[in-house]
């Protein structure tokens, strides 16, 4: 690995070949830029993500205790978590939790809700159509597009395997 070799600023300043200079500079910058603590980030994400999931489990059990079936209770839970996420986004609280939790708030359904609600709040000023309408999925759009696309691909594979009697 060439990355393990220390790159000195001298190899940037005194390099005549622009391409090599840029390569050296990029490596040098990597050396002097402070890195985030991955272990700490993972622990924080694990704890907060776990808390969100525990809250979700609480809702599922609660709705079941009210008489809902398992599927219905799961759906109610998703609706509840999405609602809470949107509410906290609107109140400006979700971003503060996410700053601490990182992927812990990004991965659960609450993260998806936040990524839709935040542009809606931001672009409301640009109108219902060109603001909210066009820009609400600026962040969530790729998730929706590629989510649907990959489920279509998987469906197609499943269909073919079924014809071939593999599954």
């Amino acid at each position, binding site marked *: 690995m060439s990355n393990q070799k220390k790159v000195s*600023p*001298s190899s*940037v*300043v*005194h390099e005549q070949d622009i391409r090599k*200079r*840029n*390569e050296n*500079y*990029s490596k*040098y*910058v990597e050396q*002097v*830029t*402070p*890195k*985030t603590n991955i272990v700490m*980030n993972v622990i924080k994400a694990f704890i907060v993500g776990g808390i969100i999931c525990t809250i979700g489990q609480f809702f599922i059990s609660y709705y079941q205790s009210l008489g809902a079936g398992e599927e219905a209770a799961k759906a109610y839970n998703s609706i509840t978590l999405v609602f809470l996420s949107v509410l906290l*986004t*609107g109140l*400006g609280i*979700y*971003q503060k*939790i*996410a*700053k601490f939790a*990182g992927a812990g*708030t*990004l991965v659960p359904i609450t*993260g998806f809700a*936040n*990524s839709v*609600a*935040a*542009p809606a*709040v*931001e*672009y409301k*000023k640009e109108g219902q159509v060109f603001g909210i309408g066009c820009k609400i999925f*600026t*962040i969530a759009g790729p998730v929706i597009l590629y989510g649907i696309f990959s489920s279509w691909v998987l469906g197609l594979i499943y269909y073919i395997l079924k014809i071939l009697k593999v599954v």
Partner: protein
Amino acid sequence: MAEEMKSKMMGKQSILFSNPPVIVAGSSIAGKKEGEGPLGHLFDTIQEDPMVGKETWEEAESEIMKEAATKVLEKAGLKNTDIRYLVGGDLLGQLIATYFGIADLNIPTFGLYGACSTMGEAMAIGSILVDGGFADRVMAITSSHFASAEKQFRFPLDYGNQRPFSATWTVTGSGAVIIEDARIHKKNSNEPTIVIKGVTVGKIVDYGLKDSMNMGACMAPAAFETISTNLEDINVTPDYYDKIITGDLGYVGQHILIDLLKEKNIDISQNHMDCGIEIFDKDKQDTHAGGSGCGCSAITFTAYVMKQLKEGQWKRVLFVPTGALLSQVSFNEGRTVPCIAHAVIVEAI
């Protein structure tokens, strides 16, 4: 005549003025977070409301720019009709903060886009206009707003993401100066006069980085090239300046700049200062690498640097705001981040 023109040009890309134009006044309008920072007590006005009573972030930025323009006129004891040209810009597409903000002032205008280097560019062009005899007074102005910049360049404010340590925090603020022909300037005997002795106009410098979350590293080579060219062009050593003041390199960029210059046997480790580092307290204010944005260097200059020069703490400084000239489109298309730095020699006489 030709000879006289030639005498102003120094070296490759610098100018030393025949009649160094005077900075008669500077204004600084800052946001709440900037007001809570280490320089908070120095700003003319602190806007507690990020919306400044307006409907949108963009309108709010225009409003603080208008305040900066009004304030600098008031401090200089001048009217808008006394200003020949206004030279300025901001970070937003098509310079909407500037054009909407200054519309009511009715001053002939040059709009500039130099990203965060805009204050340096505006002061350079302003002083060229004045020393060239094309204007008696020019207003140089710029602004940035945390929320409008985040919206344009990054994510909606309420989106839950984490910023890396190398990321900077866009300053909400607007600064303006009035540059006046030295020959019509009425000297205030109590304090030194602040003049723009010369400028070094920056080139586009691109060392191939693509990380828009590490602007300091992207821009440091531009500052490196402009500072070393300035010293070479006017044939001086770094100690010629009491301070060499970059705009918004932040901690990462400062480290790199000092490193790179050392390779050219230029040591600025003792007299370098970065506005982005000065404006926030990174531990208390959670601003990571420091402040950034056009407003960062502008209000640090007008509130802090000008004060130090007026009080005689510093005699001569090199003010070098740096700008990263990327756009959302260039970033998404995987292009590198081209940068620029303009140097302005400011002296107290």
